[in-house]
């Protein structure tokens, strides 16, 4: 329960830092600290218990990404490369497109049930981790390690391994990130297309001295 509240608090702080990204550093740090304290207060005073009441529990993956986002906003260091983030978001969205309809009743097969203790599911996660490890995508490996260890110690309220790995809000964020990524890429291409003819027309001009 406590870990669930801390994860939620991290997400709220990350969101507040994102929203205040144009403010001076000192003011943003103050906002983040205030949000953290407000979030961690117990029910009914705290922000996190109310958010959890309406949005459900967040996964540890969301919590870890929020932590990385906080460090990025406060220290300026990017822990995940754009390529790795893009790959992870794509993986999440495709996984969700298969996982949620099946788990919410579209078939007799229920992937959510595997999360209550299924050897094949755990082996699949190990395989995924090994692929990430061989590709040196260490952030994905660490996320898998932390989620499985937290599940072993039952740090979240859920008894299901899936709930440690993904949640709907993480999928919404991944979808949003991919859309923004596409928009930024398109804008960059348009800018390039505009600047290239100018450069091309500018090149042959010679002035005689």
């Amino acid at each position, binding site marked *: *329960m406590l870990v669930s509240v801390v994860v939620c608090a991290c997400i709220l702080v990350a969101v507040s830092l994102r929203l205040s990204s144009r403010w001076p550093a000192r003011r943003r740090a103050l906002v983040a600290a205030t949000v953290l304290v407000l979030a961690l207060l*117990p*029910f*009914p005073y705290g922000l996190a*218990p*109310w958010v*959890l*009441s*309406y*949005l*459900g*529990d967040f996964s540890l993956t969301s919590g870890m990404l929020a932590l990385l986002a906080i460090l990025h906003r406060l220290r300026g260091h990017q822990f995940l490369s754009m390529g790795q983030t893009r790959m992870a978001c794509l993986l999440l969205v495709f996984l969700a497109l298969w*996982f*949620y309809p099946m*788990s*919410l*009743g*579209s*078939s*007799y097969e*229920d992937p*959510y*049930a595997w999360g*209550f*203790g*299924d*050897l094949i599911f*755990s*082996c699949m*996660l*190990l395989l995924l*981790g*090994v692929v990430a*490890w061989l590709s*040196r995508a*260490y952030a994905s*490996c*660490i996320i*898998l*390690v*932390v989620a*499985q*260890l937290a*599940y*072993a110690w*039952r740090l979240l*309220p*859920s*008894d*299901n*391994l*899936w*709930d440690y790995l*993904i*949640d*709907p809000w993480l999928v919404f964020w991944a979808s949003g990130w991919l859309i923004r990524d596409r928009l930024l890429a398109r804008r960059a291409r348009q800018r390039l297309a505009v600047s290239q003819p100018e450069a091309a027309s500018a090149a042959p001009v010679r002035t005689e001295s």
Partner: protein
Amino acid sequence: MALNKWMHWGIGALLLVAFLMGLPGRALHSDPPFMAEHVPAHDVVDGQWQMRFASDAETALVHAASMVELPDGRLRAFWFAGSREGAQDVGIHSSVFDPAAGAWSDETTVVTRDQIREGWGRHVRKLGNAVPVLDDNGRMRLFVVAVSFGGWAASRLVVLESWDQGESWQFDRALTTSPFLNISTLVKTPPVRFADGSVGLPVYHEMIGKFGEMLRVGEDNRILDNARIGHGRKAIQPLVLVDSPHRATAFLRNESDDHPGMLYRSDTYDGGSEWTPLVSSGLPNPSAAVGGVALSEGHWLLVANCNSVERDDLCMRETRDSGRTWTDRIYFHNRVSWRGGDLEENRFLNMIGEELDGTFGVIRDQPYLQRVEHNKCFARGCEFQYDYPYVIQTSNGDLHVLYTWNKSAIRHAWLPARQPDKGGRG
């Protein structure tokens, strides 16, 4: 470079350790069989049923009763009650039936919305169905539907524990049963037991999909497993009747346009790990909850609305061949002839008065009549409603049925295995 190499192998080792630690112990073991708890009793169905009220008509609305046998042979019943369904004042009410005295105790509120809010540390907007389990060590557990926002489709399940046979309760935990915001899981029907001490809790989902499932819950209230009974938008409120250690049948309330007006059925042959696709049971039902009990292998009783349109009757059906053929045994109520919702109020109240006359311990000037008038009479007329049956057989062979009587009272039908000398009224 050396550091990178160490980090690389270190993360690889961590992956392996996390995999081994995250492996659930039960993943390597086979699932336990059911406990087939049949009470050796004679054919009790033809005796004389006695009718009582478990509730006192204290509140405007009562609904969704359940019950459990206490170690001394008494019964404790639970239901939700308040000013209206979904109101903030709805709590879980309870009373105790003493078969020796043939009477129910006064109704008390045993679980409130605030109590769950405080224990859980989350907002709770309203409460709903509650289902009890009594463990061998005397601990009683209550699985309660709690809603933080929206309607019943946003329900979550919480577990409370009692060490004084249901008089007082402590919040234990909320169950996470769905990957989408953990919403849309409800209980209604009696749990079943497994040989390893775990409990099979039939649940159902109502958001996006409408289907049943059976959760296997351990003694520590952790979910060990779940198995789907149907899928899509077809059927809810699975009633599971256990025949033998590996065989059980579920009857489900029909929520689809396929086989309209019929109960659905699904079977398991491996102790509940896999359930067969839903098929029509051939039993008419107006998309209403069903109760029942397995008296012995293949010999089952079902209590339900026995027409395909309205909840204005309630009957008991019996099968001795695992549901291939059914016999209508008893109609607790049959008001099909007055269907339409336009029954003139005086005539309706006279008929309700007759039902009160046939109820032990009730006199007409008690508030039941006013409650029924408030709940079931409208501008164009009045209508009858008998629904949400919950059936158990106690260890001495007695049969007990609780159901919602015109939204106004929890009515109790009791068939003692050995008829008391004083007789009874049906």
